[in-house]
């Protein structure tokens, strides 16, 4: 290690938000020609630390050395001057501008689009990116947008790159492509930091891992000398078992029948086309697909939140009677006696109200109960106490606004509320997105528990490894159409990945 030069050395860096120490005396070295994976649970301070390096936050204490010289980074501009660039989880691009325009946006000097395009093409050629400089952002897929973000940082001369959960929105194939680019950049002598929760990516990509826990620096290891269990134990602080249970479905019976469902977005774009499937009780039906392939619309259609062009959705009672769910809003569905729970993708924008406390969020589903014009906060308060206790939600109290909780805890609150209503159908969209490994397994356990109770679970996921381990059957969506339904016990990642990009995949599935 001594042979390499430390591009960045952070010494005793501390940052507090109010009374919470997001980072406490963190010492971190980043070397040139190396990919460092920064690991830690939600709320362990990874993003805060990187934000300080890229000039978004200013540390309360501590020093940052760049190439051995102490520097003060007051703004992202300072960071870029020092060659530090960050690719954020949420892209910061302007939709109506082209790739080139976005890349040179905010740069000083004379505006010369032609020259800029040439330089962009040079960068792309060097590292193997595929960017069409004139293409508008709104025409791009998520992975193309991400590429633009990375090129933007490189264009500005960054040789220390920070990527915050870059693979959260990519397909396996796109991820592989990104990784090969990152490897090329490493070989070119750039220092790369990647924040991720996916352990198999850490293993396949990084040279070294650094672990944060509760805002403190725990240690760093060479990736080849460690394994997933050891890394997880360092992150969590105690030994954990990493097995997803998959009990055999008990007495599965059809619960939700979807027939020829077609949905258009408000702009008239076809989002779902002739989707037909049945979800059974006591079974987890995984839904795989590239993001934006109709997963959101499918779940919202079942939950009564989506206008439907044609097709039908039926709820099947235990005694076999069918009830049409189409054309009913969530309130009517609930009034029919169908207990349908939905954990939406957008937790704080749809599932919960960020500015309300845990109690008031618990009340969202139940506040109408009783004839009194006034709300009764006693039962939701009890529910809040129970959820916090049973699911180990880390919070200052039940009157804390949920937006102040970390991602994993927000999700626990949401899932806790949704399963409290004893559902017969549970819809979940990206239930573990952005969650650390420990919280993810808590959520998997909760979902499995529901399955054992005979709930029909529809699980939209993005991590194929998890989908394959957790689901009983997997429905693969491709461009709004059903590409196939496979037995999760008998398929593999490759086949599902193929089916995600082409209807029917390579062919031989059941």
């Amino acid at each position, binding site marked *: 290690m001594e042979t390499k030069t430390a591009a960045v050395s952070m010494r005793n860096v501390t940052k*507090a*938000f*109010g*009374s*919470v120490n997001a980072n406490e005396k963190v010492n971190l070295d980043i070397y040139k020609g190396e990919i460092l994976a920064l690991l830690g649970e939600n709320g362990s301070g990874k993003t805060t630390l990187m934000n300080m390096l890229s000039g978004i936050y*200013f540390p*309360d*204490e501590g020093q940052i050395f760049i190439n051995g010289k*102490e*520097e*003060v980074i*007051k703004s992202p501009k300072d960071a870029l001057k020092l060659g530090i660039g960050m690719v954020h989880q949420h892209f910061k691009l302007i939709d109506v501008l082209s790739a080139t325009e976005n890349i040179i946006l905010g740069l000083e000097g004379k505006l010369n689009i032609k020259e800029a395009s040439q330089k962009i093409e040079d960068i792309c050629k060097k590292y193997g990116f595929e960017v069409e400089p004139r293409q508008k952002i709104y025409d791009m897929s998520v992975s193309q947008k991400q590429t633009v973000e990375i090129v933007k940082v490189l264009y500005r001369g960054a040789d220390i790159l920070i990527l915050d959960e870059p693979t959260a929105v990519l397909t396996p194939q796109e991820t592989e492509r990104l990784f090969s680019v990152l490897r090329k950049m490493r070989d070119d002598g750039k220092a790369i930091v990647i924040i991720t929760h996916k352990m198999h990516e850490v293993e396949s990509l990084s040279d070294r891992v650094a672990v944060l826990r509760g805002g403190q620096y725990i240690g760093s290891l060479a990736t080849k000398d460690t394994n997933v269990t050891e890394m997880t134990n360092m992150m969590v602080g105690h030994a954990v078992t990493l097995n997803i249970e998959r009990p055999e479905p008990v007495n599965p019976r059809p619960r939700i029948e979807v027939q020829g469902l077609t949905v258009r977005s408000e702009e008239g774009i076809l989002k779902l086309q002739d989707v037909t499937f049945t979800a059974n009780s006591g079974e987890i039906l995984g839904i795989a697909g590239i993001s934006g392939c109709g997963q959101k619309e499918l779940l919202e259609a079942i*939950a009564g*939140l989506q206008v439907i062009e044609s097709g039908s959705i039926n709820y099947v009672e235990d005694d076999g009677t069918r009830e049409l769910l189409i054309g009913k*809003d*969530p*309130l*009517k569905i*609930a009034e029919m006696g169908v207990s349908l729970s*939905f954990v*939406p993708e*957008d937790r*704080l*924008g*749809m*599932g*919960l*109200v*960020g*500015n*309300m406390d845990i109690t*008031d969020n618990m*009340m*969202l*589903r139940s*506040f*109408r109960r009783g004839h009194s*014009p*006034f*709300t009764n906060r006693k039962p939701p308060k009890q529910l809040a106490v129970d959820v916090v206790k049973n699911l180990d939600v880390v919070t200052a109290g039940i009157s804390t606004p949920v937006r102040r909780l970390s991602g994993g805890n927000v999700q626990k609150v949401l899932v806790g509320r949704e399963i409290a209503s004893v559902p017969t159908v549970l819809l979940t969209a990206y239930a573990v997105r952005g969650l650390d490994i420990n919280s993810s397994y808590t959520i998997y356990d909760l979902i499995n528990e529901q399955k054992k109770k005979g709930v029909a679970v529809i699980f939209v996921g993005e991590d194929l490894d998890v989908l394959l381990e957790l689901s009983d059957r997997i429905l693969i969506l491709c461009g709004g159409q059903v590409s196939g339904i496979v037995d999760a016990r008998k398929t593999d990642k490759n086949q599902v990945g193929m089916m995600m990009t082409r209807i029917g995949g390579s062919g031989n599935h059941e």
Partner: protein
Amino acid sequence: MNEKSKEPFFHIVKRDALPWYKSIGIRIAAIVLALILCAVVTTITTGINPIRVYESIFLGAFGTARKTWITFQNISILLLISLALTPAFKMKFWNIGGEGQVLIGGLAAAACMICLDDKLPNVLVMVCMVIASIAAGAVWGLIPAFFRAKWNTNETLSTLMMNYIATQLVAFFTIVWEVPKGSGKIGIINQDSNVGWLPQIFGSKYLLSILVAVVITVFMYIYLNYSKHGYEISVVGESENTAKYVGIKVEKVIIRTMVLSGAVCGLVGLLLVGSINHTITTTIAGGQGFTAVLVSWMSKFNPLTMVLSSFLIIFMNRGASEISTNFGLNHSYSDILTGIILFFIIGCEFFIAYRIQFRKKAEKEEQ
């Protein structure tokens, strides 16, 4: 040392929630500082002893029993309009049409007084006035809400435009009903018969609006914080998607809330015409529909805090008129003072949310 100096002299750090006494302390400090600055500005620009100016301001608001009553009456009107706007604001529906909703309520009350004068007994006229003015205000709130709910039109524009419609309607009826003809004024309505003059309470003509304000304050506080409607308003305001997700009918909540908002404004129009002025002019609302926006925001939509905010604004206003007569200062001078005070009050919110951290190492080296 050279590198140290590159560190910014101070940087801003977000605070955790402050204990209540500290945040109140910061606010009091802000008001005291504002008063000191006002004093300095006064002395420099006019040479008048600031203590005497403050004394005048106080006497302007509370100098005599009558002045005190009028101060409280004005507070009650401003407070009522602020309360009326608050449920809409909590829903993130920017109702800046308070002015028009008040005017149209007042116009409806005046219409009843003028048209039903000799046709119905006094009590029934009053009942008609109450119903008509509340309904008129409600309709003025309903129209923009309906368009917003159905076609997602911008309510800021539509409520604002409704103000002008109301003003023009009042101007039109002023000509229709003008007394005497050609004066361009309606004058005191039913001066002899007093038909439609709302009753005096305990012999005081000021008390009615104050009592109404107290009742509506309590009602609004309970409605917003403890009722199912209030809860729905908060959810819709925070996130329409969440509201739809739990089956709240967003359109219905928007319309219902704006009807309430407009109705309370209409009620204010009734008080202004039936109890306070006994006439109607285009300026009867006096811009308070807009001042109320400030009051509501400054109080962070808390009805109880609104009592204090409207008190402060009316107090400064009343005091201002007094100093302009006493010292021969232009009335705008009081606006300057009010401006300084508001600037400090709103500005201090920054210090409640954030803390300024000065360069630490420099301090350490000095020690």
